[in-house]
């Protein structure tokens, strides 16, 4: 098993694997999106308290989950690169960062859209909202560091340290924000969602979560392929690959 793992840790083999997997991931996630959206937006019953506007959770909750998962992927890639010197880790971390930032922003925007009719305001300093906002700033810091350091490898290595520092800090930030908001907030604001959810609402949510997850993986692989080509632009296999595609374009 380690042999296969080792094989796909090499950029060349990972590139081929990613290229083979991407259409499948896109295809399955599109199908799941279709099923989940129709089910969630039209077939699932309306909430007896929140009415139709609860349906935004089918976008909001999966993006919020992914915003955290993407940071895990990023820090995991950073750890791979720092601890085992696996170059693929840098590629994965750099590919995951903008995706994670986008899902975080999506979760914040959909949360605000949901909060307006429910709470009567776009924003409250609720613990979960605030830590999601801080997560966005952690992503933005990583991206700023990436763009400030010109050499791609050096940027990725510095980013790996930052991502690992970030993952240690995320629980600390989250729990201190929870502590802060319970101190300063009146406890009148009802938190989103009941502890139990009706099955008819839960199933489309799970389908949407899978769809988002696969969509994220597909985008991650596309971005990782692009990063690999840029990282390895001096490698022979990349030259052959790009030369071959140039030629085939030229003869067409």
């Amino acid at each position, binding site marked *: 098993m380690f042999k296969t793992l080792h094989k796909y840790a090499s950029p060349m083999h990972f590139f081929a694997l990613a290229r083979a997997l991407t259409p499948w991931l896109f295809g399955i996630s599109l199908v799941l999106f279709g099923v989940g959206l129709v089910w969630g937006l039209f077939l699932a019953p309306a909430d007896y308290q929140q009415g139709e506007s609860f349906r935004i959770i089918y976008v909001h909750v999966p993006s919020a989950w992914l915003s955290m998962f993407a940071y895990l992927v990023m820090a995991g890639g950073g750890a791979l690169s720092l601890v085992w010197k696996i170059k693929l880790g840098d590629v994965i971390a750099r590919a995951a960062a903008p995706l994670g930032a986008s899902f975080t922003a999506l979760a914040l925007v959909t949360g605000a859209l949901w909060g307006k009719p429910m709470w009567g305001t776009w924003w409250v300093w609720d613990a979960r909202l605030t830590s999601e906002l801080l997560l966005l700033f952690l992503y933005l810091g990583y991206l700023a560091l990436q763009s*400030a350091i010109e050499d791609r490898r050096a940027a990725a290595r510095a980013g790996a*340290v930052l991502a690992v520092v970030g993952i240690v*800090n995320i629980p600390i*930030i989250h729990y201190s924000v929870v502590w802060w908001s319970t101190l300063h907030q009146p406890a009148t604001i009802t938190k989103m969602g009941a502890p139990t959810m009706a099955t008819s609402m839960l199933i489309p949510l799970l389908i949407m979560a899978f769809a988002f997850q696969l969509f994220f993986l597909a985008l991650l692989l596309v971005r990782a392929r692009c990063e690999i080509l840029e990282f390895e632009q001096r490698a022979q296999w990349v030259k052959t690959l790009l030369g071959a595609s140039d030629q085939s374009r030229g003869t067409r």
Partner: protein
Amino acid sequence: MTPALAILRRECLRLLRRSSQLVQPLIFFSLIAILFPFALGQQTELLRQTGPAAVWLSVLLATTLSLEDIFRSDFEDGSLEQCIITLDALPLACAMKSLAHWLTCLVPLIGMALLMSFVYDLTPDARRALISALLLGTPVFSLVGTVASALTVGVRGGALLMALLILPLYIPVLIFGASAVHHATLGLPTLGEHYFLAGLAVLAATLAPFATAAGLRARLS
């Protein structure tokens, strides 16, 4: 003299001999701290309530600006690279860098904060809580700040980048530090916040030097 002490002595001397580096954060701190009354108005009661927050924020901003200098001159004259190549105990040297930064930058800032607590007319309890919380919380600023300083060493336009990297990581200290003073103003016990700040400081002291060393190696190898 052990190597750690020698590094500490060198760092302190280096920072102390350049007096502008020592004084400028203090001036910046006082300037930010006296901007708050202009924005908020001059009612004593309001300023007594917002004073602790103003002091904490000013310390935060002054620290952020001072972080860039931790590694800059060492990087420019090349001694940083020699350190990375020759030192066995790079994390220890990084810890000494943080300690030197705390001693030369943040301890004077805490003295200035004491002065500001009179300007804002804090109650004696609040003043005591502010200073003790600053003493426990600011080591985290230095330690985590050294990591960010290592990561941005040699990057142009570093100050803004530094603020972007470091301010989210300072939020827990800000929360507990500000709430300690707030509770002291209300006459409530503040032991919990102090324990939290001490815990954060211990955690930062154990992990940050290793992250700094990894960051330096990542930037300069």
